[in-house]
């Protein structure tokens, strides 16, 4: 198979390269180094500045393949899928990884069909198998109950999506040099059968749990919506974001954007503090990349304790008020 090189699918929003692109470059770098090949970022956009394109090189890309067209001003499946399929056909990368964002999860499956490639969704681990140079992909399945290891030995490119924010980017190196290739594609690849008629921006305070440094989360153990406000209060004191288990979301104490876990968001804050969360595998799947975890639960056997750096077996209704008081005093709030 004459397929060579590791590609990551970059993402931009109104000309600004998104963080997920840099995260993918870190993942891609490990693979490219093991294979001793170039790491390439492919980006589709409209009027993305040279400085933005260079940033992909600073974060680890050896090359950037960029297509500029007004059709990429907002996301539409057809031109994305057709352009990427065309570029894959031209450059023949052996690996293509995308972020498991709404964009990545939309285009990757369609590209996999068109390129006759294997695609593994939502990988948590990517590695290269020694000898065969195959991509080894690990992902949770059956609600996080198992970890499956997957290969696509006979098909290229080997495609995978990885959870956004499941790893940190590398530190950028502004002195790094690389090549930016401006690709021109024929009009037939840029046609779209759908059209954006409007975009409604979502703005909610404390909901950006993916980018937060501190996340304070509560679960069913809070027992009432009123009690859940202790979580919100603690988050406010610490300038953190509010997270919730699925139970807490289903009960209406927090909105869906706050949900942490397999069917919610993956968070990787410096500090994750949670109370009244049992730590079901589906919840743990979303917090494994948190750097520090503090858990408060009254059940000595709560699974959340397995993942906690500090495990506090206590009644949250006694413990949290005390923590809130002392923190307020400490922070003069």
């Amino acid at each position: 198979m004459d397929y060579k090189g590791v590609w990551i699918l970059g993402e931009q929003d109104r000309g600004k390269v998104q963080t997920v692109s840099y995260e993918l470059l870190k993942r891609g770098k490990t693979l490219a180094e093991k294979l001793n090949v170039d790491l390439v970022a492919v980006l589709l956009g409209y009027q993305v500045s040279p400085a933005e394109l260079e940033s992909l090189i600073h974060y680890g890309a050896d090359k950037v393949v960029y297509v500029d067209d007004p059709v990429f001003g907002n996301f539409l499946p057809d031109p994305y899928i057709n352009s990427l399929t065309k570029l894959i056909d031209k450059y023949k990368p052996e690996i293509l990884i995308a972020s498991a964002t709404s964009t990545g999860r939309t285009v990757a499956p369609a590209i996999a069909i068109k390129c006759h490639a294997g695609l593994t969704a939502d990988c948590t681990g990517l590695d290269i198998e020694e000898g065969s140079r195959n991509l080894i992909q690990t992902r949770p399945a059956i609600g996080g109950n198992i970890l499956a290891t997957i290969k696509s030995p006979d098909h290229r490119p080997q495609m995978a999506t990885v959870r956004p924010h499941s790893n940190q980017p590398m530190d950028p190196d502004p002195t790094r040099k690389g090549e930016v290739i401006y690709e021109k594609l024929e009009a037939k690849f840029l046609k779209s059968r759908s059209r954006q008629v409007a975009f409604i921006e979502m703005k909610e305070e404390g909901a950006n749990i993916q980018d937060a440094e501190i996340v304070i989360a509560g679960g069913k153990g809070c027992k009432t919506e009123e009690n859940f406000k202790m979580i919100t209060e603690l988050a406010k004191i610490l300038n953190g974001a509010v997270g919730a288990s699925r139970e807490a979301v289903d009960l209406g104490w927090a909105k869906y954007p706050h949900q942490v876990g397999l069917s919610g968001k993956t968070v990787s804050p410096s500090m994750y503090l949670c109370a009244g969360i049992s730590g079901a595998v589906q919840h743990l799947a979303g917090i494994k990349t948190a750097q520090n975890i503090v858990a408060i639960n009254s059940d000595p056997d709560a699974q959340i304790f397995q993942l906690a750096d500090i495990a506090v077996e206590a009644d949250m209704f006694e413990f949290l008020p005390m923590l809130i008081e002392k923190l307020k005093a400490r922070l003069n709030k």
Partner: protein
Amino acid sequence: MKIIVPIKQVPETSNVKMDPETGTMIRTGVEPIVNPLDLYAIEEAVRLKNQYGGEIVAVTMGPPSAHKALREAISMGCDEGILLSDKKFAGADTWSTSYVLSKAIEKIGNFDIILCGERATDGDTGQVGPGIAAWLNIPFSTYVSQISEVTETKVTVKRIVENGYQLLDVERPTLITVVKEINFPRLPTLDGKIKAKQAEIPVWGPEEITAESEHLGLKGSPTRVVKISTPKVSRDGERFSPKTDGEMEEVVDCIIRFFEEKEII
């Protein structure tokens, strides 16, 4: 209007028990159910039918017993169910599954809208919907939280993305994958249940859908599962079990020191 709803039968994962020795799922006592997220696709199909008229065909690829899933779909308001079942289909990954479903949909023919769930709760990939659209070469939209209008030529949908909602006009015929926010699935009616019980469910194999055998099952699947393991998670953290107020205070202080150490305050 003709609406096709691909649905999947899945094990009820919230009750899944794992065998810690072998790392496999204990299947005994696990009732298969209709993928919970597919109920929203079925419901949306019924609503569209009620508004615009037409018929709904539910289709599933699975073992012979998966006819039960189709009957449930009929009890909720679908008109017909078609079961794709054959030994040659077994072991298919999302590439092959979407191929088989697209061939079946071509055979059903003349469709206007295909409605899929966001993802199946067992495989949890969300790849089959976009895959079917790619095989059929029709436009598609994912993460749709509202279908606001259907006209002769287009469908207007609202899709949820990371930072907001995208409103799109999409040419017909089209495939749509829906999210939970779109509706509240109805319960089956008594009439529906009777209809479901009596329904004839045709079973199609590779010949009926003129599928190429090299695209089928495990053999036709680019991906290979090479290992299954049970995730082990453990950080060996510090454990506190404060009983008295005094002990609680000590732990609170300890957490505050931890925050200081990690420079978050």
